[in-house]
């Protein structure tokens, strides 16, 4: 197994490198680098100084090299608006986004898989049909509109939950988290549920489809022929089989959850990376955009890598094939 892990890591590093080239080309060659990196309010003298300092008068290769070495040292430019390191700002906001995304994913998994399993076991019963109809609603509902409606109902009309913001944070292993307090939960629950809705519906449908297919397989009949209890047939034989692709998809969808958090954070004024991005786009704070891009790309690559490794760890057929090859 270690051999294939190393191979995957090398592949991931390659993709990251390619991405860095693309981002670089996007910023330096296609876009007007002067506009993107230098504060538009700077006067002529400052612009010339900045151009020289940033090496924008040098050849493209040299610029890329400077960019790359800067990136490897964690320097992705300074924000126009906040005048601090762009990368630093993004990393500061990351825990909030991750907290939101992880809670959302957790909600989706805890409710989605059991509901999907039930719908798959009894597809023609009332419960099964209701679950499926509900799931169609779940992924048809536009996330941002649901967020607005949630605020409308729970914050304005009922006054139960706060309409925006993140709760008080405490440090957990040096990372600020808000889910350890009740007040934190009151702020977390709406945005997390909003974010979870789409994935919840997706998981229900996926689990249902997987269950229906698994039940048609011979090994289920054989398991019954052995006289195993229904609980064991479903809980061990069926579940172990459908969990493998589902876990993979959960992992892959996690990246999508982080991206969708952009919208949720905007609606609920949740102080994460996503909100920072939108604010930066509106304020034309381009270094932040570049930094966000690279950080997110790196995150996705890492997620994909973890999912790959996880999949081979779970599916014995793949694990043993990889070990041989």
């Amino acid at each position: 197994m270690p051999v294939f892990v190393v191979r995957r890591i090398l592949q991931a590093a390659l993709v990251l490198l390619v991405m860095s080239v693309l981002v670089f080309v996007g910023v330096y060659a296609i876009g007007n680098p002067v506009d993107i990196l230098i504060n538009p309010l700077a006067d002529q003298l400052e612009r010339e100084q900045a151009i020289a300092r940033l090496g924008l008068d040098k050849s493209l290769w040299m610029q890329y090299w400077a960019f790359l070495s800067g990136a490897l040292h964690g320097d992705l430019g300074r924000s126009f608006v906040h005048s601090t390191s762009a990368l630093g700002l993004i990393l500061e906001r990351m825990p909030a986004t991750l907290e939101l995304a992880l809670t959302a994913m957790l909600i989706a998994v805890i409710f989605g898989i059991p509901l999907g399993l039930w719908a798959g076991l009894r597809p023609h019963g009332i419960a099964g049909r209701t679950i499926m109809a509900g799931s169609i609603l779940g992924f048809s509902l536009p996330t941002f509109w649901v967020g607005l409606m949630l605020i409308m109902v729970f914050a304005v009309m009922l006054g139960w939950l706060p309409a925006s913001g993140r709760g008080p944070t405490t440090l957990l292993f040096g990372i600020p988290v808000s889910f350890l307090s009740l007040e934190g939960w009151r702020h977390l629950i709406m945005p997390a549920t909003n974010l979870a809705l789409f994935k919840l519906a997706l998981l229900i449908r996926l689990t249902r489809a997987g269950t229906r297919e698994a039940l048609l397989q011979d090994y289920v009949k054989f398991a019954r022929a052995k006289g195993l209890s229904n609980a064991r047939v479903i809980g061990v034989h069926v579940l172990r089989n459908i969990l493998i692709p589902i876990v993979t998809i959960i992992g892959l969808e996690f990246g999508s959850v982080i991206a969708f958090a952009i919208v949720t954070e905007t609606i609920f004024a949740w102080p994460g990376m996503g909100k920072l991005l939108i604010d930066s786009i509106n304020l034309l704070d381009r270094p932040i955009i570049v930094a966000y891009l690279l950080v997110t790309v790196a995150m996705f690559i890492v997620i994909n890598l973890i999912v790959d490794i996880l999949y081979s760890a779970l599916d014995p057929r793949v694990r043993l094939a990889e070990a041989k090859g």
Partner: protein
Amino acid sequence: MSEALLTVSGLRTHFFTRAGVVKAVDDVSFEVGRGEVLGLVGESGSGKSITGYSIMGLVDPPGRIVGGNVLFDGVHLTALPAEEMRHFRGNRLAMIFQDPMMTLNPVLRIDTQMVEAILAHENVSRSAALERAKEALSRVGIPSPAERLRGYPHQFSGGMRQRVAIAIAMLNKPDLIIADEPTTALDVTIQGQILYEMQKLTREMGAALIWITHDLSVIAGLADRVCVMYAGRIVEQGTTAEIICAPGHPYTRGLLDSVPGNAPAREKLKQIPGMAPPPLDLPSGCPFRPRCFRATVECEQTPETRPFGTSGRTLRCFHPLPPPEEES
């Protein structure tokens, strides 16, 4: 004559599909004595597998048993509630399926799949169950069983997988084993081995065996008695010797003639003309009528099962074949 272990009477299993009702098993009756080997022969679609499932209580929707009785050692299996039937399955009744590739769960280890079969019926310790599993594996001829137990199904060849399935079937010393074409998906060389093993093991255990197959040549050396099925019905029943040497039903004759070994050298292989009827569109009267060289107008009536000859044979035909002595 000792009391039969299994008595199937008038079994009917129908499938209620959107396109219509498929009478997969349509009034099937036979008996299996203790330690006896019964061959259930028929083409694909004849309903032989479904008969096996019906006995085991494994018929999936949209099918269900709509009539008849399955009496096993004095217990009416068809009338049992599901939970009680579960205690019989894998314990006193076992089944082996056709495709060894898909019968074992690909993501679970072999020992898990064997131990659970024991623990589902007996309250023994896990290590005791493991010991029995190891023994069972070596009995079916799998080398280094302790190691093999920790492996996964895809690490075994087709023949080995089927041996594992056989081992699992025999774990709880069942009184009856239903083997549904267990060698069809295997290489010819392996087929013979598996056949021999099964014969030996069932005789050692004293278990009865229902061997479902489309291949009459397999039955010849294996079974004590044979049932020939066509379109969901049993058209002929008797001892193996009787069926092979003096078949009564034209279909049986056709099956015998189409076995390559039986044909005289240099002559064209005989085949039964036509094809098996589509299950939703059975011909009226005798279902074999369109393909039968002895069919007459009378065959537009449905033939009933009648005794044939003296020794408990039965036949469902208006124009049974004359015994061989009369032909020459």
